[in-house]
């Protein structure tokens, strides 16, 4: 019994690590833009497809496919950032909702147009199971946890020690003051956007080997999983997002085991409602961004 619960908690942490990688990008984008990016799951999808193309069409090994997937996502994000997202600075909230929903549809349909709507098989990755303390996990899952920890550590360093990170924090606090002191707000917005989208792409490439099937609509579910996480974590709060992702991952894993798999997708919003009743601003302060 105790072993079973601990195994489910480990399963939850692995799921949480994936959610954390996707959600952190979305929360950072919210921080600088004040807009929820409804196309976030589509960057996850673009990353996966980038890697799939690298393996399927160019026969590249998986580690290079990871890089290819992230570069493909960053490139798409650069285009979208230049033409759409930087116009969102100071725009009303509904503009952001409409623009990102539109981008989500365009990205999905472009991929379906080019590669067809069917499910594709993702080859590659490290899927052999390893057993630690009796709990069996694919090597790929350990890689995902390691990458998530590294990414959060790196982001911490970036926002506290680099010029770019400091500019991001400043923009997230007050756009007008940043403009007054000469910070190029649009440049900061586009860079944050590319970074956030690339992280979503990275988690797409990392999870593809264990999720096996790749298709144009795969990002939708990710967006809807990520929304409650970033609200729970306090919109724009990076550390809060990490913990919220872990809480959701573990809660989902326990619910899937002890209540029923069919209830898994309801866990996110149910937990969110409970948390918001108790702490209306989320688990962590939305003032303490990054």
């Amino acid at each position: 019994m105790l072993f079973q619960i601990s195994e489910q908690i480990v399963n939850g942490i692995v799921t949480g690590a994936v959610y954390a990688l996707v959600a952190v990008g979305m929360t950072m984008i919210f921080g600088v833009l004040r807009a929820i990016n409804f196309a976030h799951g589509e960057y996850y999808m673009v990353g996966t497809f980038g890697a799939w193309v690298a393996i399927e069409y160019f026969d590249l090994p998986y580690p290079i496919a990871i890089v290819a997937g992230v570069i493909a996502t960053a490139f798409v994000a650069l285009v979208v950032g230049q033409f759409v997202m930087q116009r969102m600075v100071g725009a009303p909230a509904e503009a952001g909702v409409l623009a990102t929903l539109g981008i989500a549809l365009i990205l999905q349909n472009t991929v379906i147009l080019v590669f067809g709507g069917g499910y594709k098989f993702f080859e590659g990755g490290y899927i052999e199971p390893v057993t630690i303390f009796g709990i069996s996990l694919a090597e790929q899952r350990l890689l995902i946890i390691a990458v998530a920890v590294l990414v959060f550590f790196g982001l911490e360093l970036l926002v506290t020690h680099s010029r770019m990170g400091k500019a991001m924090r400043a923009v997230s606090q007050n756009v007008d003051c940043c403009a007054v002191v000469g910070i190029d707000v649009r440049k900061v917005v586009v860079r944050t956007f590319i970074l956030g989208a690339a992280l979503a792409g990275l988690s797409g490439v990392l999870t593809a080997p264990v999720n096996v099937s790749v298709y144009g609509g795969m990002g939708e579910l990710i967006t809807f999983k990520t929304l409650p996480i970033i609200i729970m974590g306090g919109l724009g709060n990076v550390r809060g997002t990490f913990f919220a992702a872990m809480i959701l991952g573990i809660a989902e894993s326990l619910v899937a085991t002890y209540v029923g798999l069919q209830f898994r997708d309801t866990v996110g919003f149910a937990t969110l409602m409970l948390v918001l009743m108790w702490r209306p601003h989320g688990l962590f302060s939305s003032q303490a961004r990054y």
Partner: protein
Amino acid sequence: MSGPNARYGAFSLRGAQLAAKEINATGGIDGRKIEIFSADSQGTPVEGVSATKRLIAQDKVDFVIGDVSSSVTLAMQPVVEDAGVLLINAASSNPKITYAAGVGGFKWSFRNYPTDENRALIVAQYAAEKRGFTKFAVLSVDSDYGRSAIEFTKKYLPRFKGQILTEDYYKEGEVDFRSVLAKIRDSGAQAIIMYGLADTTPIVARQMTEVGLAGKIPLIGNGEFNTEKTIKSAPKAMEGAVEAAAWLPAWDSPKSKAFVTKFNAEYREAPNNHAYVHWETVNLLGKAVEAAKSIDRAQVRDALAKIKYDSAVGEVTFDDHNQAKLPMILLQIEDGKPVVKGAYSADIDYPR
């Protein structure tokens, strides 16, 4: 042919046309030639009803074969009943179609195809009798199809002293099955009953490998277990998987092989299940007309109800619900390849 099932419809028409051509080439049935009229239901009940009415009123057809979609067939049943025209379904699998036929009400609709209930029963029977499983876990898609397949399985498991230990349904698009698979592993189940989507099977198979289920607890049910891609995704987990099909091109019988060759020669493509069942159904109908020695509709109907027909899979007869009692082909994955384990049929219990 248009709509979501257009591809299946095209195969069906080609199968039927091939049968008509063959029969006509040998002089027809008692000197009468068969003529095939095609109509397009577009996969929707409304279009299906008006297409059926057109076939009966304008083309003056004697017999109707169709439709691929269960909801269309259900809508066609009252139409043929009013017109007194024989309808033979050859592709819909919803059990309701024959619950409502024969002694259940409609006198003019027949079905020459196994239902979801047949499939669930045959798979459960094979798992219990040939593999000796009694303890099952359920992991099916959360849809009418997945849920009703499990309902039918539960209906028949007591026959084989089988019991279900855990029951889970997944939403379309679900990608994380590890929690549930770990629960199944610890539950003592001997097999997982899965009626699911083709694209989910490889994910489940891979994660079975992760939680240490591969090679220990096989999948049984339906979900394109036998495709190359699925087996390749996790060969060890797919080993021993069992599923049932109405027909397969690989089915080893002279009649079946001859059909595949002829279809290939005629259309330069391989036939699928839908082409086969429609080809067989035209032949079946021909035999019924021969037995009736007339094309009087009522006499053909009565001849069909009593027929003993040798199909490429095995003997076909009809029960009092006008449902064909016909064998299904069972497949098992062995050494990474689907192996046909034989054809099985089983009697279903109709609800009273």
